[in-house]
C-alpha cells in the first residue's frame, strides 16, 4: 500500500525570530526527501513538528487523507531519529531489540543482521558512533510505521557506515517514505531523490544542484 504524508503551512518562531514561515512538502512511500539548510534554519524543527513533539499553532499534517496533530502518539505512523543518541545505555542490544520491535520477523532480521549479530551482548555505550547510528536506524526502519524522519543520520559516522546507512534507506524505501536532513550534503544528495533547501523560512524544491550555489548554500563551483 502506498502512503502519503502531506505537510503544509508550517510556521514557527523562536523569541520573535521567524524560523519557518510556510513550509510545504509531500512524501509518499518510496520517496526519500533530503532537506538541506544552514545552521538554525529550522530543519530539525520541521522534523519535530511533523513528528508532533514540537508544538506550533501553524501546521497542517495529513497522512493518507487524515489530519493529525501529533502523529507520534499513534505509534504506527511516523518514527523519528533525533540528532543525539536516544537509546538507553544500560541494557544490551539484544534486550533493546526484544522490547522495542513488536514483530518476530523484525526481531529476527535485527538479530541476524551481519553488522549487529556480533554486538548483541554489548551495551549501547560500548558501540562506536557508526555502529550506534546504524543500530538506531535499523531499529526505526523495523518499526511498523509508514514514514521515517532522520535528523542527521550521518553525524559522527565514519565514511564506511555512511554508505551502509544509504544502502539501508534504499532497502526499506519500498515500504516506507523517508525525510532526511544532515549537514553532510554529499550523502544527503546521494541518498535522496528529491532535495528541498530551507532558506528564509521557506522550503525551496531544488531541481538542479547548481541552485544550491545560487542560494549560497554551497560555495560557487561545487556543482557547476
Amino acid at each position, binding site marked *: 500500500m502506498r502512503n502519503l504524508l502531506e505537510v503544509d503551512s508550517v510556521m514557527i518562531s523562536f523569541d520573535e525570530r521567524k524560523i519557518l514561515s510556510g513550509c510545504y512538502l509531500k512524501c509518499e512511500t518510496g520517496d526519500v526527501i533530503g532537506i538541506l539548510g544552514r545552521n538554525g534554519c529550522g530543519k530539525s524543527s520541521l522534523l519535530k513538528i511533523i513528528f508532533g*513533539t514540537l508544538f506550533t499553532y501553524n501546521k497542517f499534517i495529513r497522512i493518507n487523507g487524515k489530519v493529525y496533530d501529533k502523529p507520534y502518539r*499513534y505509534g504506527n505512523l511516523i518514527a523519528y531519529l533525533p540528532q543525539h543518541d536516544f*537509546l538507553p545505555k544500560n541494557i544490551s542490544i539484544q534486550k533493546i531489540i526484544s*522490547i522495542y520491535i513488536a514483530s518476530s520477523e523484525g526481531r529476527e532480521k535485527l538479530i541476524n543482521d551481519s553488522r549487529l549479530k556480533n554486538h548483541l551482548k554489548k551495551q549501547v555505550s560500548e558501540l562506536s558512533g557508526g555502529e550506534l547510528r546504524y543500530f538506531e536506524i535499523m531499529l526505526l526502519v523495523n*518499526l511498523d*510505521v509508514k514514514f521515517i524522519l532522520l535528523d542527521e543520520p550521518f553525524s559522527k559516522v565514519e565514511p564506511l557506515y555512511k554508505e551502509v546507512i544509504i544502502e539501508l534507506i534504499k532497502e526499506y524505501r519500498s515500504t516506507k517514505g523517508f525525510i532526511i536532513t544532515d549537514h553532510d550534503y554529499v550523502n544527503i544528495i546521494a541518498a535522496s531523490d528529491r532535495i528541498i533547501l530551507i532558506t528564509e523560512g521557506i522550503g525551496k524544491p531544488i531541481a538542479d544542484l547548481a541552485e544550491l550555489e545560487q542560494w549560497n548554500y554551497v560555495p560557487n563551483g561545487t556543482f557547476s
Partner: protein
Amino acid sequence: MRIVFNYYKILLTVNIPFSFIFGYIYGVPAFLASFCTFGLLISAFYFELYYKQRYYFYFNRGFTKLKLISYSFVANIILVALFFTFSKLIH
C-alpha cells in the same frame, strides 16, 4: 508494556531513595505517600533533566510523557496497595 517498564525502572532509581529519606524522617506512611506523588514527580523531573533525549525511545513507540508518567503512577499505586494487603495479612 516492557518498554514502559524500562522507563519505570529508571524512575524507581530516583523515586525510592527520595521517598526513603521522607520515610526515614516522617515514617512509613510518608514514604508511601511520597512514593506515589512527590517522589514520582521528582523522578520524572530528573528524567526530563538528564535523559530528555531518551524520551524519543518511547515516543517512537507511541508513548507520550503523560502516558509514561500515568502508567508509572498506576504501578506505584498497585505496589502501595500490595504493601497494605501484605502488611494486613501479616498483622
